[in-house]
């Protein structure tokens, strides 16, 4: 991210959403962006994956300007974004179909990631037959299926009940700890500070709108992390004090 800004214009008036932002992601980085509601976190993610152009500045992916159809970047959405008329298997295969993968290979890869997220047994199920957590697992399997270098997640747990969310966080971390599985880096947006401290190696803290970076913190707590430890709460408190 090189000095990326974003503004929206209405009746000739400028509404600044993001002030110049500059940061990078490296191999094996798990980075969370936190900030209050409306600070431009989701807009930032949309710019990073190329779905939204920045007003100024540049997003470079491996040295080249990012494009929305970059198959090395995948996205997991808050609302799951599944096709209700497709089965779990078909939803996961969709990303591979867009990539032009051969049907047999598509099937094999989809099964591998369906298994990785614990959904074997539900291949033929439709989204309406799944719980919220399972729907999000489909979204994750679909994103991982294209074997991206970078996985972006936009508030992936905020539509789930607290128990399901906690379980899914742990399972994502379990997947992340397996270096044989993609991605090589994760960028997650969340409004939940505890969640960021629980999951990330690095937390980028944005101010309220227009979002500007107020801190970039390296969370050096060993994994698995326990939210009851005083050190954990030390980080949570520090981030709260930066935002409020």
């Amino acid at each position, binding site marked *: 991210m090189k000095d990326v800004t974003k503004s929206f214009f209405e009746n000739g008036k400028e509404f600044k959403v993001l002030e110049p932002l500059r940061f990078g992601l490296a191999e094996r980085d798990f980075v969370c962006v936190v900030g209050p509601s409306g600070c431009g976190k989701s807009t930032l993610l949309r710019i990073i994956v190329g779905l939204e152009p920045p007003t100024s500045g540049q997003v470079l992916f491996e040295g080249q300007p990012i494009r929305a159809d970059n198959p090395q970047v995948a996205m997991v959405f808050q609302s799951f974004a599944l096709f209700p008329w497709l089965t779990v298997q078909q939803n996961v295969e969709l990303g591979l179909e867009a990539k032009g993968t051969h049907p047999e290979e598509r099937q094999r890869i989809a099964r591998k990631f369906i*298994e990785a997220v614990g959904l074997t*047994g539900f291949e033929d*199920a*439709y989204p309406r037959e799944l*719980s919220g957590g399972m729907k999000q697992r489909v979204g994750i399997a679909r994103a991982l299926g294209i074997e991206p270098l970078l996985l972006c997640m936009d508030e992936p747990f905020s539509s789930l009940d607290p*128990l*399901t969310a*906690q379980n899914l966080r742990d399972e994502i971390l*379990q997947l992340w700890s397996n270096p044989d599985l993609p991605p090589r880096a994760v960028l997650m947006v969340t409004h939940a500070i505890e969640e960021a401290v629980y999951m990330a190696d690095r937390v980028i803290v944005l101010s309220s709108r227009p979002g500007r970076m107020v801190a970039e913190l390296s969370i050096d707590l060993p994994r698995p992390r326990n939210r009851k430890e005083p050190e954990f709460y030390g980080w949570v408190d520090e981030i709260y004090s930066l935002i409020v």
Partner: protein
Amino acid sequence: MSNSHENVGRAVAVADFRSMAKVSVGQVLGLVEAIDEVGGVADVATISQEVDMDLDRLGPVLAAAEFLGLLTVEDGDVRMTDLSRKLLSASVRERKAILRRVIDDIPVFRMVLDAARQARRPLERQEVLDSIAARAGSHQAEDLFKALVYWGRYVELVQYDSRAEQLRLRSPSK
């Protein structure tokens, strides 16, 4: 005497399995993780506060976790079991295998699996509902069927085609 005792036991088991239609595996595992995080034992009120869920929503999850042998609830205290400790340190595939052994032993589940095995063909939804109703009463049949399909799929013993409304056995992945 022993027969009536057995029947009561079976009725309780059937009723408990029905409650599993209301919860997901993610919720059950999330609850076990939350209790592990507070040291493996806590009173229900503390857990409710910890996980930010009121007792109306937490109750069915607690009941399902207890039914599966993952937690014990006694005098208001919720305690992890050896099985849940094993489950937490297991991989995704091992978790399924652990829960498969538990679920395979549930009488209503066993009854449907045996029927499918003997029939050597897919079972129609309606015939499964009828056999559950004959055993547990028609008011419970829909919930039990839902639990059977959901948990049966999770532990990879059941395959269900919701369009054709047919249920068949499947072999767990190795």
